[in-house]
């Protein structure tokens, strides 16, 4: 129940908010538009003036290397997101629910993976796996080690982001559910999960992004002949990557956007109270 003046204030606020959000989105998408536009430009060197041409999409259709690289990236990223989100959320729950000695240290240990340049971590992983994996009879390069690396790099992000959500979590709600007779499992699924859902979703999106654009780990741990999209792009730098890269990036963005918007249409995870 708000007075007329308050309602005007809120409406004005909403209008300003919408404009501001539009501006921020514009900022975020300007390079995306440029990237997509250049996918349709004839010049292989991003030269203007703009000449519309579909040649890059056509040559992408025959570029098996890029296509299989794109597919590998998606496949790994999806696996990575599922694993990292589950493991990371569990850890974040533990940090938020319980106090125990060593909790601070464990939280601090999340910093090295995001501080130390990925090249150093990648090299360390390569050498370490090279020494240890043959001891258990496994090859040290392959999709399994790439996945190992990706999940490891995603975990800190998941734990920190979900942790932020849990910090605002009203524990009283859980306690109330318990006093009403809910088992811990029920409490989790029907009370806690919906509340932390936005954090988990955000974390999952970051995990996907971390894996999808991860170059160094994939580069070091990929066996010859197998490659992911960022690796294919970066290794073609010496000669020059053609706008086929723009074409595939544009396709991926369009597909992701469609999937996301369809999901948002049918599944509410914004955590409405």
């Amino acid at each position, binding site marked *: 129940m708000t007075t007329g003046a308050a309602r005007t204030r809120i409406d004005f606020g909403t209008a300003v908010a919408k404009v501001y959000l539009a501006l921020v989105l514009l900022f975020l998408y300007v390079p995306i538009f440029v990237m997509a536009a250049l996918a349709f430009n004839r010049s292989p060197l991003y030269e203007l003036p703009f000449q519309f041409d579909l040649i890059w999409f056509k040559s992408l259709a025959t570029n098996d290397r890029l296509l299989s690289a794109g597919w590998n990236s998606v496949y790994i990223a999806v696996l990575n997101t599922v694993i990292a989100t589950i493991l990371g959320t569990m850890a974040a729950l533990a940090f938020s629910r319980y106090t125990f000695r060593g909790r601070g240290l464990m939280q601090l240990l999340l910093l090295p993976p995001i*501080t130390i340049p990925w090249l150093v971590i990648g090299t360390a992983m390569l050498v370490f796996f090279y020494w240890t994996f043959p001891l258990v009879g496994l090859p040290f390069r392959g999709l399994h080690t790439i996945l190992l690396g990706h999940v490891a790099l995603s975990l800190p992000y998941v734990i920190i982001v979900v942790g932020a959500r849990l910090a605002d979590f009203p524990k009283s709600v859980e306690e109330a559910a318990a006093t009403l007779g809910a088992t811990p499992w029920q409490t989790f699924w029907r009370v806690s999960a919906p509340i932390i859902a936005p954090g988990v979703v955000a974390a999952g999106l970051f995990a996907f992004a971390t894996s999808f654009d991860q170059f160094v780990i994939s580069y070091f741990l990929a066996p010859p002949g197998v490659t992911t999209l960022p690796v294919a792009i970066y290794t073609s730098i010496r000669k020059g990557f053609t706008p086929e890269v723009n074409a595939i990036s544009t396709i991926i963005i369009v597909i*992701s956007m469609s999937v996301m918007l369809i999901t948002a249409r049918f599944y509410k995870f914004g955590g409405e109270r």
Partner: protein
Amino acid sequence: MSPRQRQIGAILGLTGPAYAWLALTIFLPLAAMLYCSVLNVSPLIPGPSHFTLQNYLAFFQKSFYLPLTWWSVLMGVWTTLFSFLVGYPAAYALAKRIKGRWREALFLLIVLPFWSNALVRIFSWTMVLRQGGLIDMAVHAVFPDAPAFSLLFTYPAVVVGLVHSYVPYMILTCYVSLQAIDDSLMEAAQSLGAANWTVFRRVVFPLSLPGVVSGSVLIFVPVIGSFMEPRILGGAKGATLGMNIEEQFTVTANWPLGAALSFTLLAIVLLIFAVLYPVLKRRGIWS
């Protein structure tokens, strides 16, 4: 099983998988790297090697490391600050002013640019910022006589590129925090006579701090070690510590030095956290 034992079981069960994973893939390899950093030659090279702290001392002895590190840290500070200034209002707008399906859709749209390949994205920024690029063309469309506009190869260009790459972290973590704040809390404060600004300053903002802090951590820490945006957008102005560390692995093959520099970087980050820790603890963010 006593409640305490059950609790320990729960803690181990919940954190075990994630940390076992991290131990195998990050902590152990990094421990090996730490060992490597106190050797005088890379352990992959056959032959004797001995313990030395020279690689760590090099940080202080060579004249360029301190300014380089300082700039990298400053870059982190600017990026985090601007990400906050740009991102927090966006998060607030999204959490408090947008309702319904739009909220989810926007939430997802904000993350989507993240999924594009970083190199292509940064090159796209050069097309926007350079002379003859998008902004230059737009300016000249309106003011045909204006001098050529080019932001490329300057320090601000690097910050713009970095903010663009990292602001989604801030927006999303703040959103996640803000969205948890019950509207009724705000209404209660208002009904007690508080002005909007006071409500924000004393109720909303403090409650959203976990989001702000997480976002800042996720931005500040990686930016310090970044080198791609600085190189491509900053040109000759884009020297960073991250770039120098890479060179120890790709040019000089001096892994011990590269490793030592990485751990020095980590130490600096930990130092900064140590300084901020009392502040955070008081706010109940970290414990």
